[in-house]
């Protein structure tokens, strides 16, 4: 899984495996925290080049699942297959190098760094200049630094923050911080991008822009796993959706199937509401 032959300023590497095949595959994944079963026997596949939605009420285990896939925790049971290999328990920094990037529910930027520097930190796994390289500053190190700056500028333009390169990221408005975090994640040139509630705290216009951005990212061949509470956004951008409830997989299907699924409705709105809508759906 090397990207060395790619142009560092170009779009990220397209998945090399067959289009439509699963990039990520969960097989019976479970996780317990001190006796609480956070996730129980979760299985699903994320086909390459698609946007997969992950929804469910609060406490359903969505963020836990993200933390397992991005290597923050190791699963207690089951397997997480990425491009065919089990990545369960692999450290985060290696997973990023392997092509899994993520954003956080509560934006986690490097606030004292400028927007451009944040994106450049995002390229860490795709660059190699170390201590000696920094001191000697040979032609290779200089070229890498220049490429890195150019790529950062391009990613900022891609998310619509071209004018903010030199602004300390902590001073950006919240909505732009979200976009910057996405740019930082993209800068690691992932094949799989995990977005944890990217629309939280955004207004309607910003959410719409975010929806377009997500589809553009997919257009670059990046597979996306999206946790989101904003239903209209989720239904609009997702190719498929998995519903979690209390640590278990409740349903899976296209947005249309999910919208009319009885179990999903009762999980979200309570069983009493679920029952009449069953008749409606029929």
């Amino acid at each position, binding site marked *: 899984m090397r990207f060395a032959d790619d142009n560092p300023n170009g779009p990220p590497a397209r998945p090399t495996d067959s289009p439509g095949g699963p990039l990520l595959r969960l097989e019976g994944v479970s996780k317990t925290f001190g006796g609480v079963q956070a996730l129980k026997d979760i299985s699903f596949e994320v086909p390459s080049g698609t946007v997969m939605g992950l929804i469910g009420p609060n406490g359903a285990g969505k963020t836990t699942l993200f933390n397992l896939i991005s290597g923050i925790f190791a699963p207690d049971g089951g397997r997480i297959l990425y491009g065919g290999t089990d990545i369960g328990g692999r450290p985060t*920094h290696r997973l990023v190098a392997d092509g899994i990037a993520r954003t956080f529910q509560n934006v986690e930027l490097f606030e004292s*760094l400028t927007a451009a520097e944040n994106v450049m930190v995002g*390229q*860490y796994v795709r660059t190699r200049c170390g201590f000696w*390289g*920094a001191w000697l500053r040979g032609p290779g190190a200089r070229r890498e630094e220049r490429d890195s*700056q150019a790529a950062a500028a391009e990613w900022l333009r891609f998310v619509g923050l071209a004018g903010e390169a030199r602004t300390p990221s902590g001073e950006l408005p919240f909505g732009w911080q979200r976009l910057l975090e996405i740019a930082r*994640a993209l800068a690691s040139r992932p094949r799989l991008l995990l977005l944890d509630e990217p629309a939280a705290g955004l207004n309607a216009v910003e959410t719409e822009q975010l929806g377009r951005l997500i589809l553009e990212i997919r257009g670059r061949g990046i597979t996306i796993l999206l946790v989101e509470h904003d239903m209209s956004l989720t239904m609009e951008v997702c190719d498929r959706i998995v519903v979690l409830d209390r640590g278990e997989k409740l349903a899976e299907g296209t947005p249309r199937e999910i919208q009319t699924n009885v179990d999903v409705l009762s999980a979200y709105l309570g069983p009493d509401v679920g029952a009449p809508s069953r008749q409606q759906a029929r």
Partner: protein
Amino acid sequence: MVRPSLHNLVPYAFFVVLVGSAGLWVDNPYYFQILSMIGIHALLALALNLLMGYAGQISLGHAAFYGIGAYASALLSARYGLSPWLALPCAMLAAGLVALVVGYPTLKLSGYYLGMGTLGIGMIVFIVFREWSSVTGGASGFVGIPPLGLGGRALLDVRSYYFLVWAVVLLALCGSQRLIRSRVGRALRSIHDSEAAARAVGIPTSRLKLQVFVLSAVMSAVAGFLYAHMVGFISPDTFSFIVSVKLVTMVVIGGMASIWGALLGAALLTLLPEVLHAFAEFEMVVYGLILMTVMIFLPQGLTRGILDIYALRRRQSERAARPAD
């Protein structure tokens, strides 16, 4: 960051002119000793600033590495007759190895706990210096450290020594600045802001923290080497807990995450006691008051406080100018 342009060179030019002219004009050996001492402290503050100001890892025991550098070089050159120039790499290696061994478990800690951990290291090393009399000379100190020579003759005069110290400081300044403005430097600063996020974007944080800790220790050992061969006598008190705290103060007063701040802090805290002799028994009171005043009005330290105001002004005027073009 965009290009290593003229305005990056201005502070260096200023630095070289200042150090050069001071070196040529000053004629009093006592002043030279103080000026060299500022350089040694600047080197230490720079080393600690890489760790503390940039990577955000506090060390309350940095005098230990300063001491290891001094004692290792003193021992090898005075007792085993090794040339001090050969003793220097050995001293650096010794400090680096100790940092590697103690840093590995210690850097798993953070915040107050890391402070306590490094404090412990400083104390242990201090006690070793004081109690292992057969090797270190114990509390009464280690005497007879040979002066440095160049090409067979001793660097007799204090003036050359002063230039030597400041040449090392200049080298350390350039090296630190290059490091900070590189991929590694950005990664270190990102660890300072949020270690969790740094890990999530793919930075091997534990490894990087350990590397910068070792680097910082090695730089401190160089300062210890310069000190030992300048003074010719070392005792444990020079490397005590109080000195570690002073180093932290230099970094904080000068300005965290600012290489010129380290220089300023070192100069200020080395000169203050000299100037404050006039206050006799109130010396420490005035000293404390000055430190408090700086922290209250410029909590980011001297350089950062001033630079931040400047940067803010500049951005504001840039913003104001933008609609025009």
